[in-house]
């Protein structure tokens, strides 16, 4: 309730402010030459002092990538990407030797994170969220490391993990999303620069929320972070991810990969608030958000839960998925996607049921306004051995305005008779009756829309950790700014 009041204020503020994360920080960066070739891949690997096996893996990915066509099956449209016209490595110069403490971080960078509302500074640590901040290509700060270390939790940049626990990284990297997976993931495998690494030891319940904030700052730079989270037997972790970028006229590519592995009785909860720059109201600029996220419920009774609030990016192409291999494992996908103006989103999930008595739940709420087009694309596959599998899917679309589109494309493949699969989808609009009713009670139109949309998304908003729920509710209102006349 408090949050919806905030929504209202945010909408007001935004009337003047528009995209508030659109600032650009002027700091000295070290960049690799423009373009993409084997030398760039070697350059990145060398910059990070990587072991030989990883360089080999990157090169294999790069060579394979050259042979792959662009994926064409989704309902998104854009000019061909000029891969040679971007920088694949950009790092704040001061971070070249790796910051040992926050004191060593460029004060301007700290200021950037302050603007983003990310608690990097000491006094803000009371919030109880451990943060890894990734700025362009490198991780710049990870808070709470010592405290996490006490219980054996590893939470650090993946580049650091390659030095401190290379065997863990080697054992799991690429086991959920192989380098051959898809064009964007393969590119990531070749050129990923940083990202977060999390390992939760057996039986440990991670004492705090872990969080990563991603920020693209430099111009013409792609961001290719790679996140790897392993929850060992009987452990639990909740991980939050947020993203922003400055306003720029050209498109920027963000091709991330996230791999989650849950062993016996482990649980991973992964929440995303994606607020990349969406481009202006005429569809100029904005981030291409082409992301591969996949979780592997490897152990019995394991659980992976994805929650996403996708409000930014010019194009979102993303299907956080679960491979339910362990018996009794559970996969969940809760999604809110909002597209306004000329934004496009093709998003959904894949639930692959392999083990016995596996269950999955998909709740997707899509809101399309302006001239935006949005597609829910989902796959539920019950393999012949997935005895007793269970899936429930609910996809709802809300259209605001007569020039937007909302599409639902679910694939249901069932090869086991004992499975129960249910899929429901609806499409609706905010009715004139609803608007008039709310206005008659004194609520102005923009707030009325935010209220109805927040109600429409409630089931998903409830899944978010408290710290994110408030921010998400605000975003819902802001993203629809200007969608009613």
């Amino acid at each position: 309730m408090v949050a919806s009041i905030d929504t209202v204020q945010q909408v007001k503020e935004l009337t003047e402010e528009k995209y508030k994360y659109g600032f650009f920080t002027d700091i000295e960066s070290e960049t690799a030459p423009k373009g993409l070739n084997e030398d760039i891949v070697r350059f990145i690997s060398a910059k990070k002092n990587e072991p030989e096996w990883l360089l080999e893996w990157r090169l294999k990915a790069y060579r394979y990538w050259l042979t792959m066509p662009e994926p064409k099956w989704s309902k998104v449209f854009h000019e061909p990407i000029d891969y040679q016209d971007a920088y694949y490595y950009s790092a704040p110069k001061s971070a070249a030797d790796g910051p040992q403490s926050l004191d060593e971080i460029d004060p301007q960078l700290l200021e950037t994170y302050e603007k983003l509302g990310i608690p990097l500074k000491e006094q803000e640590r009371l919030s109880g969220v451990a943060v890894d901040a990734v700025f362009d290509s490198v991780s710049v700060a990870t808070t709470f490391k010592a405290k996490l270390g006490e219980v054996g939790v590893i939470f650090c940049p993946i580049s650091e993990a390659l030095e401190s626990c290379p065997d863990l990284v080697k054992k799991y990297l690429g086991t959920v999303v192989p380098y051959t997976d898809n064009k964007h993931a393969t590119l990531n495998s070749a050129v990923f620069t940083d990202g977060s690494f999390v390992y939760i030891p057996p039986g440990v319940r991670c004492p705090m929320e872990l969080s990563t904030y991603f920020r693209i700052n430099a111009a013409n730079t792609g961001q290719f972070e790679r996140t790897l989270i392993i929850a060992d037997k009987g452990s639990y972790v909740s991980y939050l991810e947020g993203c922003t970028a400055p306003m720029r006229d050209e498109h920027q590519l963000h091709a991330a990969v996230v791999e989650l592995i849950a062993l016996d009785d482990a649980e991973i909860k992964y929440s995303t608030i994606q607020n990349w720059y969406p481009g202006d109201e005429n569809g100029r600029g904005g981030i291409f958000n082409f992301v591969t996220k996949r979780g592997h419920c490897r152990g019995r009774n394991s659980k992976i839960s994805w929650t996403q609030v996708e409000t930014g990016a010019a194009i979102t192409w993303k299907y956080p998925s679960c491979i339910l291999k362990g018996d009794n494992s559970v996969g969940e996908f809760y999604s809110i996607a909002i597209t306004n103006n000329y934004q496009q989103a093709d998003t959904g999930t894949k639930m692959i049921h392999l083990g016995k008595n596996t269950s999955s739940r998909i709740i997707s709420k899509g809101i399309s306004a302006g001239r935006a087009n949005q597609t829910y694309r989902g796959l539920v596959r019950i393999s012949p051995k997935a005895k007793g599998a269970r899936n429930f899917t609910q996809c709802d679309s809300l259209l605001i305005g007569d020039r937007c589109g909302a599409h639902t494309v679910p694939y249901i493949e069932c090869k086991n008779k004992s499975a129960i699969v249910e899929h429901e989808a609806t499409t609706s609009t905010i009715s004139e009756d609803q608007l008039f009713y709310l206005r008659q009670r004194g609520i102005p139109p923009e707030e009325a829309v935010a209220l109805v949309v927040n109600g429409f998304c409630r089931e998903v908003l409830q899944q978010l950790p408290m710290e994110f729920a408030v921010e998400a509710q605000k975003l819902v209102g802001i993203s629809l700014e200007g969608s009613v006349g």
Partner: protein
Amino acid sequence: MTTESTNIKTFVESFDPARSGLPGAGLGWLKALREDGIERFEALGLPTPKLEAWKYTRLKPLEDTRYQPVTDEDGMAALDTVPSLLPDPGGRPRLVFVNGWMRPNFWIDGDLPDGVHLEGLRDVLETRPDWIRERLGTLAGEDASSLVQLNTAMMDTGFVLRVEDGVRVETPIEVIFVGGLTARPVAYSPRNLIVLGKGAEATVVKYHVGLGAGAYLANSVSDIEVGPGALLRHYKVQAEAKEATHIHTIRARVARDATYESFSLSIGGRLSRNEVSVRLEGEGAHCALNGAYLMRGSEHCDNTTVIDHLVPHTTCREVFKGVLDDESRAVFVGRIVVHKDAQKTDGYQLCKTLLLSTGAEIDAKPELEIYADDVKCSHGAATGQLDETALFYLRSRGVPEALARNLLVQSFIGEALEEISDEVVRQAITDQVVHWLPAACYLAEEWRAE
């Protein structure tokens, strides 16, 4: 040259001997249309699962079998009794085709009112070439699938039903296609045309039934125009023979305030595909697209439907239910498209499937594509097995298990059968469902649903 295109060449060549004898040989425009069709078919090739529209269906029999054209001898195969779907054909109009050949001796003119014209395709090509040219031309189209192109090239049989403005036909018209009475694999390409004038009404029942054991390919296309305020009930039962491949493409255009009601029951064939596309072109147009599929053995049935809402105030309702036993497989792809400015569209779609066996598989893709905001669209899809609690409940009341299973299957399919508005046809189709159930336990009369 790739093997794929080699296959297509041999596939096409096997039809060559028949091409000179096709109906309408004297019509230049038709010759051009046919040539266009064969060229496009060769260019497109047989559909493969690489095409999104064929993701779940592979035309294996077409890749492996060399089908021959139907000869006069095949067409005149002996038939003792006509396997009619509807009871007591008495005064009911009926057309019969055997192995794709028209068999006028079995036809019953019935008591059709004035203004109703029911003829063979061959006859209409002779008597009203300009009228049919206009329709075949506009409906064939460049964007049609390769199998429609093949049909256009090879169409050798079929019927034309024309109902003039304001004429209402009370009795269902039955069209029977008997297949499987040949010793070698044959292929035929019926092309049907149904045109209802303003305010006209008619009911057409197509019964595709296999009698022999032969392999055959029936590649039918039906083009349908439902005029303003008209009502067409269009029912179909696919009970082809064990080795049959049945492809049926139906394309319907529905005008202002008109209704197109369709029901398709699939209970046979090795491989069957019903592809229905309906365009709601005038305000107030409505379509009801329903069906049921009951498969066993290694049968494969694909129902692919597209409903285009092109103008405001149109409605559709789609209910499909299926039961899959043994190693059978079914595909349901249902797409509802609400075009820009087609406000106030009301669309509903439901697909439910029961899996009776561990080897069975259902692939469903219910799809909504929406470009207008003031619309009400929903769809649901579900798969599951027989409700064990209900089974136990029936058994605890003294119903033997086999019978109880049949009852539950029948009640499950019943939800789709209820959508059939013509009572005589609904009963006939219900009988087909009951007959499909395991033979040991045909239900006694008193067990039948109302």
